[in-house]
Each structure stands twice: as C-alpha cells, then as structure tokens.
C-alpha cells in the first residue's frame, strides 16, 4: 500500500501518461506532413506551380487550382470579414441581453457545428439556383463566407469583449458618442484578435471541398477564370479528382498537390500567429 501511494512514483506515472497523450496527438500530424513532404516534393517545380495541367491532368502543373483557391479565399474575406465584424459589434456592443439575443447566439454556435457539405447544398440551392449565380467564383465565395461567419463572429466578439471596460468609460467621459467609442477606443484594440480568428477560419475554408463541390469547382478547366461568374478549379477539389476520378495519375502528382494545399494552410496560420504575437508584444494592458 505504502509503495503504491509513493508520490514520486505517482508523479512519474502521471508524467508518462500525459506525455503519451501528447505524442498520440502530435505523431499523426508529423506522419501526415512527413509523408506528404517526402512523396510530394519530387514533383514540386516552378512549372508545377505555374503551368496549366496537360494530358487530362496527368502532366503539367496545377496553377489554375492554386489561382482558383486564391480567388475563393479573397472572395470569402471580402464577404465574410465586414459582415462578421459588424454583426459581432452589434451583438457585443449594441444588442440588449434578452431572449432574442440568446437565440441568435445559440444559432451562431450551432451554425459553427453544421457539416460543411450542408453548407455546400445550401450554396447550391440559394446562390447557384435561387439567385441564379450559376456555378461560379461568386457563389463559391459566398458559400465559404457563410460557412466561415460563425467562427469569425465568435472570435470577433471575444476580441471585442476582451477590451477593458475602462477604455470605453474614458471615451464616453470625453464626450464621444457610442459609435465613436466603438470605432476609436474599442475596435483598434480588438482588431488583432479579430484578424487572427479570421485568418484561422480562412485557412480552414481554403481547404474545404464539400462547400465548393456544387457551387464553383470545375473538374478540369485548363484556363483561368475571367470573371467572378466563371467556374474555377480549386486545390482541395483538384486533389480529390486526382485521387479518385482520374485513372493512372502518378502518385507523386497527388502528393505534390496535397503538399501545396498543406503549405498554403500552414502559411496562412503562420501569418495569423505572427500578427497575434506582434500585437501581443505591443499590447500593454
């Protein structure tokens, strides 16, 4: 009994299991990234990144897919960021605490948990068919924007509420109006948090396949889109097509595409982290 309760032994056992759990989390990530890098880096070349696909996608590059994903991300930011910030401002600064507000908050939390394929079907029904945008960058961006909104709103609200109450009091006490207070004393100090949340949700949106499946993604389109009403290729869907729809594609090509997609997501996350740490060193309250 005495030996079982030995605190030093307990310490070691606890430490072991905590470490094990962490490894279980980290190991698959390392493996996935490792395998993709090892098998995909051989096809990486300037041509792969900048050329159009040839021979039914079995050769050439993936530039249209990269460009398409870039367009979708830009479109998502354009639609989701303003709407997300404004509704977060409304919810955290203007709305009165009541049943309606709680209902809206509940809806937003639940929307964040809706599977992405459901957003895809919504986009098909609403943007593509009802609003008659057709399968287009516009419809795809709007669908991804709708999917990103709950995360952006939640992150923005938290960032707004983290701004100390004294900033608002000072601003009001100097004779500022409500909007002036939000615009000049609250928003600037919440912006880093808002941007970080937005970038992280964008990197997720950039890698989603289901929402773009019915709304924008082209199976094979060896040219660049000319307007927002055109279809476009996109990296996640291109990867799906290469892996399952086209016979006899070199495995390296698939891994190369996956590598570009992962690199894109990592890059965006790094930008998010850099913004956050830059402002954390400047933040002094």
């Amino acid at each position, binding site marked *: 009994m005495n030996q079982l309760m030995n605190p030093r032994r307990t310490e070691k056992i606890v430490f072991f299991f905590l470490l094990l759990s962490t490894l279980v989390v980290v190991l698959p990530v390392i493996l996935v990234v490792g395998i993709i890098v090892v098998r995909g880096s051989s096809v990486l070349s300037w041509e792969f990144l900048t050329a159009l696909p040839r021979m039914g996608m079995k050769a050439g590059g993936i530039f249209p897919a990269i460009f398409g994903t870039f367009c979708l991300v830009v479109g998502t930011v354009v639609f989701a960021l303003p709407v997300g910030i404004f509704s977060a401002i409304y919810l955290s600064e203007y709305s009165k605490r009541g049943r309606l507000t709680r209902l809206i908050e509940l809806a937003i939390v639940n929307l964040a948990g809706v599977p992405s394929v459901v957003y895809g079907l919504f986009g098909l029904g609403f943007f593509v068919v009802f609003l008659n945008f057709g399968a287009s960058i516009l419809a795809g961006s709007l669908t991804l924007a709708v999917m990103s909104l709950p995360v952006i709103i939640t992150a923005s609200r938290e960032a707004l509420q983290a701004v100390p109450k*004294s900033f608002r009091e000072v601003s009001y006490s100097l*004779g*500022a109006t409500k909007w002036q207070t939000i615009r000049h004393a609250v928003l600037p100090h919440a912006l880093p948090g808002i941007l970080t949340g937005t970038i992280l949700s964008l990197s997720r949106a950039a890698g989603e396949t289901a929402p773009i499946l019915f709304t924008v993604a082209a199976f094979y389109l060896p040219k660049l889109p000319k307007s927002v009403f055109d279809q476009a290729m996109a990296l996640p869907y291109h990867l799906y097509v290469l892996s399952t729809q086209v016979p006899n594609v070199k495995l390296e090509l698939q891994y190369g595409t996956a590598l570009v997609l992962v690199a894109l997501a990592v890059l965006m996350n790094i930008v998010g982290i850099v913004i956050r740490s830059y402002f954390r060193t400047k933040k002094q309250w």
Partner: protein
Amino acid sequence: MVEKIQVQDLSAYYDGALALKKVNLTIYDHEILGIIGPANSGKTTFLRTLNRMNDFSPGFSYEGSVRIDGKDVYRDWEVPQLRKSVGMVFAIPTPLPITVFENLAYGPRRHGIRSRKRLSEIVERSLKAAFLWDEVKDRLHESAMKLSGGQQQRLCIARTLAAEPEVILFDEPCSGLDPISTAKIEEAMRELNKQYTLVLVTNNTKQAARVSDRVAFFLMGELVEIDETEKVFTIPKDERTEGYVSGRYG
C-alpha cells in the same frame, strides 16, 4: 457667486436598493467642492450622476433633478455634449494604450478638430495646465503606458482638459499614488480652479481639507453636511461629521 450645478431631491438606486437619499446641494462656478465620506456613502454615485456615467451601471435609476447651467442633465442635455462639458478623472489612471499625443487628442478629434496645428496647440496647453509638459514634451509620441503612475494620472487630467470642459469631476484621483505625485496633482487642481469648477471625491480627509473651498460629507447615501472647509473641520454642525473628520470612524 454664480450657481453652476443645482441638485434637487436627488435619490439614486441600484436594482431598487437606495444609494442616494434626497440630496440637495448647489455647486458654485469656480469653486472646489470636496466630497468626503466612508465607503458606500454614495459619493461616487453622486459624482457619476453629474455627467451621467451611471447610465452604464446596470440597474441604476434615479429620482429628482440635476441641473447644470440651468439645464436638466437627464432631460435637456445631449449626453456627449454634457460629458464634454463635465469632464471626469477616474480613481485608477486610465491612459489608452496609444501615444501621449493621441491620448490628449482623443477628445478634440471626436469633437471634430482635424487640424494638426490646432491639435498640437491643445495638447501643449493641456499638458502645461496639468504640470506634465516638461516631463513628457520629448516623449509625446511614445506610448502613454510607459509613464509612471503619477504621470499617467496627470495625463488623464490633461486629457480631460483637452476636451475643454467647464466642470471637472475627480473620483479619488490620488488613491493609488505616492505623496509626491499626490502633491503635484493637488497643485494642479488649485491652479485649475481659476478656470474650472472642480468636484473632488476623496477618501483622504486631509486632502479635502487642503484643497477644497467647501466640503460635503456623505454618509449612507445621505448628505449630512455641506459648508466651508474650515467650518466643517473646526466647528461641524452634525456630530456624525465631527466623528468622521476627527477620525473616530477609522
């Protein structure tokens, strides 16, 4: 003497609980009114009613009236205009995490002043009036958070002045400061008194004695006594006042 602020039968409540009980008093133009009293005596509630900062306290309600320049603060004044005219310095120094200059320019900018030259003039004049100019004139574009506690509080006074108020409310402005910083702020208050009407809430009875022209003593939400400073401290009319100023209440 011109009457600047008239308070009539002012009662205040938080969620129905009484915080101020039928307070009647008059504050004159260009005087320093000290408000003393123990914790929970309603002095801060009273102060925050004068510029309607109580609007942000959940459950706040009031009865009676507060008139500034003859206009009722709850009926006749535009709230931003009221707060511009009735500035406030808080208990804890509250610089915004932006530069000294931008802190000072915050009020004027919100009131529509764009010209860089005008702003610079206002910043310099306000910092000088708060006795801070010499210490920060070379650091105007550094973060205000780098200043010491006493400097930050004088920055807050200067920032209030920059909004060009007529009345300034001080809510225990020296509660977290050392004696030398306190002395500097008291010096600033006496100088400001030539131009502004000051209301000073303080837990420090001696400070009220040093600075104020008149003193009001609050207890449990009631205005017990208001009179010239010397009278309150030497021949108070109410024995509760006497007990408080002579230190019997600790």
